[in-house]
């Protein structure tokens, strides 16, 4: 039963009916989301470093450019230093796990140029055991972003000044944003925070009567010794004999 969201395919023949003799190709207006946007930096990059980057992909006014991991540093350095590109701001760096693909992690770099008013997304791929060149020499701000990608996905960045975990505890096992990491976490981690041992704790008798007796016993034990107050004898708390509870104020 198709709902209002599940529209049937335009060219699907009705079941049981004869197939239409000549299916006309449906004339669709071009999707505005896929419109090509001009980007001078992109033209400059493809002119100066031919063959280093793939074809750009346009979606919703954004440009995505695929770069091979081997050429990453070269392309980044060019984009940072060339005056026509001038991407002086690394806005974001993050990774995504695609476990079914040959190279497991996709890493994206969101760049922005203030002086030219452009944005660009670089995209590269890296396998699980491989490492990717760190861009901290070009944008020092990549430091924490790369630590985060290492922490949550386990992507290794070669040349990073100190690649340690940032959001998870240092002794954490596993990388939570990987798709094979279970959403509730591993059971070992649950055991850490089990509260059963705490709730089963038995308490000593702390009624006022018992406390008064214990205090009297202590005073008796130390009576006459150095430091024990001779002149101020211990006055036990007033105790209600029937309930054992403190009476009055």
């Amino acid at each position, binding site marked *: 039963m198709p*709902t*209002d*969201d599940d529209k049937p395919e335009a060219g699907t023949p009705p079941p049981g009916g004869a197939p239409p003799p000549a299916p006309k190709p449906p004339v669709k207006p071009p*999707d*505005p*989301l896929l419109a090509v946007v001009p980007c001078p930096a992109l033209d400059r990059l493809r002119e100066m470093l031919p063959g280093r980057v793939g074809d750009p992909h346009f*979606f*919703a006014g*954004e440009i*995505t450019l695929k770069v091979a991991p081997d050429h990453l540093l070269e392309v980044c350095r060019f984009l940072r230093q060339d005056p026509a590109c001038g991407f*002086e*701001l*690394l*806005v*974001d760096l*993050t990774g*995504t796990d695609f476990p079914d693909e040959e190279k497991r992690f996709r890493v*994206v770099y*969101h760049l922005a140029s*203030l002086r030219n*008013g452009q*944005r660009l*997304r670089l995209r590269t791929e890296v396998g699980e055991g491989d490492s990717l060149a760190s861009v901290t020499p070009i*944008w*020092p*701000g*990549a*430091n*924490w*972003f790369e630590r*985060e990608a290492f922490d*949550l996905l386990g992507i290794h960045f070669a040349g990073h000044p100190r690649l340690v*975990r*940032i*959001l*998870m*505890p240092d002794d954490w096992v596993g990388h*939570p*944003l990987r798709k094979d*990491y279970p*959403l509730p976490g591993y059971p070992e981690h649950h055991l850490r925070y089990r509260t059963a041992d705490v709730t089963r704790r038995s308490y000593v008798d702390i009624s006022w009567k018992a406390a008064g007796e214990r205090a009297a016993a202590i005073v008796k034990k130390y009576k006459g010794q150095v430091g024990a107050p001779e002149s101020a004898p211990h006055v036990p708390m007033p105790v209600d004999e029937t309930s054992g509870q403190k009476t009055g104020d």
Partner: protein
Amino acid sequence: MFRTQEMEINMGPQHPSTHGVLRLKLRLDGERVIDVWPVIGYLHRGIEKLAESKEFVKITPFTDRMDYVCAMSGNLAYLGAVEKLCGIKVPEKANYIRVIMVELNRIASHLLWLGTHALDIGAMSIFLYTFREREMILDLFEAYCGARLTYNAFRISGVPADLPPGWKEECLGFLKLFRQRHHEYEQILSANRIWLKRTKGVGYMDAEQCLALSVTGPVLRAAGVARDLRKDEPYAIYDQLEFDVPVDDGCDTYARYLVRMAEMLQAVRMVEQCLEKMPSEGPLMGMRGRKMRPRKDEEVYFAIEGPRGEQGVYLISDGTDRPYRCKFRNSSFANLQALAPMVQGGLVADVVAVIGTLDIVLGDSDR
């Protein structure tokens, strides 16, 4: 005769001036800070992992819990990304309401910053005044959406409700009052000798360093760079509003104070214009299906100018109604990197001032 010894001191995570649960490992030489290693992650709730298992509509409340001081901005950044991914148009009136709420929340966020920042440095009274005005804004929010901190006030493709009757007059009354109160804050602080001593030249960071460390927002604008996404890449209806981008080239804590103070007045201007220009009739929600069906294997990044800087959301779709990946680029996380270069060589007491001037929210940085 004199012997110096380096000392390692822990500051936080329960230190009152760290604005949440930030821990700093300070390496000190007497009163001088040699190095600092910030430890974050105490508030990490795995929102990005959670978001991968939820429908697009169900992720909006998470964005309230990240930057809880300015939850409206978080909502707007996330919804803007979803609308960009699915190609949804937002009606004009809904955009006006969104901008009113976001700008009011920017004032509230800056008021909280001003109060706590001044309190950390030692000015007690301003804290009481700013929270008095912030309370009025929260009352306005409560009248609109029922919540005072985690609003969840917008929906995909629009806003759920019109402004309640009488709200506009209340808001205009508040804005009028706020202009006077803003003048009072400036009288208390701007020429205060203690305030100047504690902020001038403290936490110096120039434009080049800011850009290298991915620092955005008022910190970058106080270094002389007029970077404001509301002007540079206008979203919603910011291209129809008249406002200035306050810039200062002092590069220090005092310059950031001036920039944020001026931003509050610009926000007041914007809200006033919005209330005046807002169409009285019109749809509040745009056209969309019951389920989000974005194109398969596409990715978008959408960013807004939050009170702390560029607040972006990066989404990857796999054609279903859930995101394959949802990454929040939060400004507190990026700006916190600037802490170490700002405090190195300074005094221990200035660490507190620098934390305040960066205006971090730990829920924002830890996610």
